[in-house]
């Protein structure tokens, strides 16, 4: 008998910390009556900037404090989904285009439209394509904080050596091809360009530049003739040896090749400017300009948004913070920290000045004609089809037309399934 009671008390003791841990959640206010809002994000490089914005926010709202919850990118979405299920998700968190509709469709995000109207949040000061990216069924769920466009980065040193004129805003795909051919130097293992199998940086911009599309009205554009033309433009460079094949770029991605000066031109994000700037050689002789014109001049624009969890029990305070994050003041602080382009119009000067050697203005100019990053309710499913199907064609094995058509069919099937 005694043994049993001992066992029971032992169990009770073991479960006590668990119970305590459970009841610890939910209580929002700390000792001084302040509400603590948790803010989920993944980029450690942006923490200092975000802390400055939070400090400014807390000064204006002494009754609210904001606590950053940093989760590494590789586990951000899995952790977020699990914590939403368990009810421990942050009150406010970063959202991207790939995941947004999944969250909005499952009603786990707080609708913001009424708040925006009530508090007159300056939504119109942010790029319209981006704002629309975070609306679902006509309701706004997120407010953009920054944006990214893709530009053509080039290595002036390699251009000088080959005696080729630097790229500029007048460049077309013909110029890009000619230059890539001239710049390729097999003996030095230098390539002119990187036709990398990377959807945001290379595939989507090429498809759109050729006049094609990725996703329109719930249908795949990969089978579209012009889309195929855009993809063929890329694989052709690989077949001719002006770009490394994808099999080589898996091991050393275009960005790394550019850093080690083994490629003369790459597509890369505005957000990468800081890292380019940190490479001593590139700081001196890297340049950037708009993407060359195919049938159309275009780029892909994407930006992150702040959203509020529908399960949050501190929605009023969370909204105050999200509202502040969409303000001019917050955007200016963010721009000064120099990591990303703030989405608030006219606040980007500080970012431009932070790297005077690079002509970063092009990234902001491209916002006008940038195509928003394509997404649907279960984006990851059809995105996951792309690389396995296109891989062979991007490794110099040919057959891009068939691969793209098959991809289009399979993507349409996935889109149909997602509509249910």
């Amino acid at each position, binding site marked *: 008998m005694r043994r049993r009671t001992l*066992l029971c008390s032992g169990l009770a003791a073991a479960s006590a910390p668990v119970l305590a841990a459970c009841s610890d959640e939910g209580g929002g206010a700390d000792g001084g009556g302040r509400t603590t809002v948790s803010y989920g994000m993944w980029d450690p490089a942006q923490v200092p900037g975000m802390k400055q914005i939070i400090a400014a926010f807390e000064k204006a709202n002494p009754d609210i404090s904001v606590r950053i919850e940093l989760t590494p990118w590789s586990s951000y979405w899995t952790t977020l989904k699990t914590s939403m299920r368990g009810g421990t998700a942050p009150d406010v968190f970063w959202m991207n285009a790939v995941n947004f509709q999944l969250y909005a469709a499952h009603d786990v995000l707080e609708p913001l439209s009424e708040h925006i109207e009530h508090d007159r949040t300056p939504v119109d000061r942010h790029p319209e394509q981006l704002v629309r990216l975070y609306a679902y069924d006509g309701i706004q769920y997120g407010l953009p904080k920054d944006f990214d466009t893709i530009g053509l980065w080039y290595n002036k040193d390699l251009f000088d050596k080959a005696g080729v004129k630097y790229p500029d805003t007048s460049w077309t795909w013909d110029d890009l091809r000619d230059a890539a051919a001239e710049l390729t130097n097999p003996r030095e293992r230098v390539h002119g360009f990187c036709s990398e199998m990377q959807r945001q940086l290379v595939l989507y911009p090429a498809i759109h530049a050729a006049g094609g599309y990725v996703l329109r009205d719930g249908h795949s554009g990969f089978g579209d003739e012009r889309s195929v033309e855009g993809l063929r433009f890329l694989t052709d460079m690989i077949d001719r040896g002006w770009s490394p094949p994808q099999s080589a770029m898996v091991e050393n991605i275009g960005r790394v090749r550019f850093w080690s000066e083994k490629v003369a031109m790459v597509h890369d994000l505005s957000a990468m400017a800081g890292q380019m700037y940190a490479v001593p050689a590139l700081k001196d002789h890297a340049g950037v300009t708009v993407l060359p014109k195919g049938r159309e001049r275009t780029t892909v624009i994407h930006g992150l948004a702040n959203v509020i969890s529908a399960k949050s029990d501190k929605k009023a305070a969370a909204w105050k913070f999200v509202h502040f994050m969409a303000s001019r003041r917050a955007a200016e602080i963010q721009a000064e920290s120099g990591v990303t382009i703030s989405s608030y119009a006219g606040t980007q000067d500080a970012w431009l000045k932070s790297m005077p050697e690079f002509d970063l203005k092009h990234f902001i100019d491209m916002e006008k004609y940038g195509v928003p990053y394509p997404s649907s309710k279960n984006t990851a499913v059809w995105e996951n089809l792309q690389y396995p199907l296109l891989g062979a064609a991007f490794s110099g094995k040919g057959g891009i037309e068939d691969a793209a058509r098959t991809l289009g069919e399979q993507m349409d099937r996935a889109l149909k399934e997602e509509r249910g």
Partner: protein
Amino acid sequence: MSLFPATAAAKSAGRRAPRTAARPVRRGQRAAYGFIAPLGIGFGVFYFWPMIQTFYFSFTEFGPFGGHTWTGTDNYARVLRDVTVWQALGNTLIYCGIGLVALPLAIVVAALLNRRGLRGVAVYRALYFVPFVTLPVAVGLVWNWLYNGDFGLLNEILGWFGVDRHYWVSDPSTAVLAIGAVMVWSTTGYYLIIFMAGIKSIPRDYYEAAELDGAGPVRRFFTITLPLLSPTLFFASVICMIQSLQTFDLIFIMMGEKNPAVGETQSVVGLFYTWAFIENAQGAAAALAFLLMLLIAGLTYLQFRLQRKWVHYG
């Protein structure tokens, strides 16, 4: 009484224990249950209960944010219809085949390290064991550098002999072998330790007697070491097969999603990961996991049947 403690233990494990009639529970047994309770509860909560849940969820469509609806055998139909599943299964069986190469390798090294008069055995043993205790992520990253097509050491060395540079992990024809080689490299040490212990339990006088009869080292290996090591080998082969059927982390680290050889190298568990955590198809992933469990159980049962034909118990 047996002369060979290790093989005696294996013997009772291998043969069916004699059935005994149910006895009244004695006081001492209660205490025994108390002692196994911590492990039993841990096993129940963290292994057995999730297993039952997985089985249940494999018949449902699982929402990305919780909530599930019963869909019957839809998930199983999807798994069986999907060509990528069969390809992943084929790949997994190839990994299993390659993984088993570690066993003969480990036996040979173990026999060599067991030679009389060899100095620094502890050092060798530690060296061989280090890869096994190294994190798979670290192993994968380091080997990726060695394999690197542009800057890798392997290509550099092969270059001296006039071999063209090759992208080992992104060429579909070599990727499986490249990963398999790392698998073998990182697990050999573990089996080496097991085999060395097994060899230690073989009495020295057998070897001395064989030597007097004029048997050479090769003959001694095949007629004494190998047969007497077979119970250990059986244990190792069961473990090795189960581990290689569940292989995932190394492939995940070494391949990356943009690799053109993803289809040729994806394992069943890798596919499970993609379905469950990227494509939000937890229900189908649960069905896949359950089928893999059945496969492993089936193959293990087969091994236990076959062992009667080749395992010697002293």
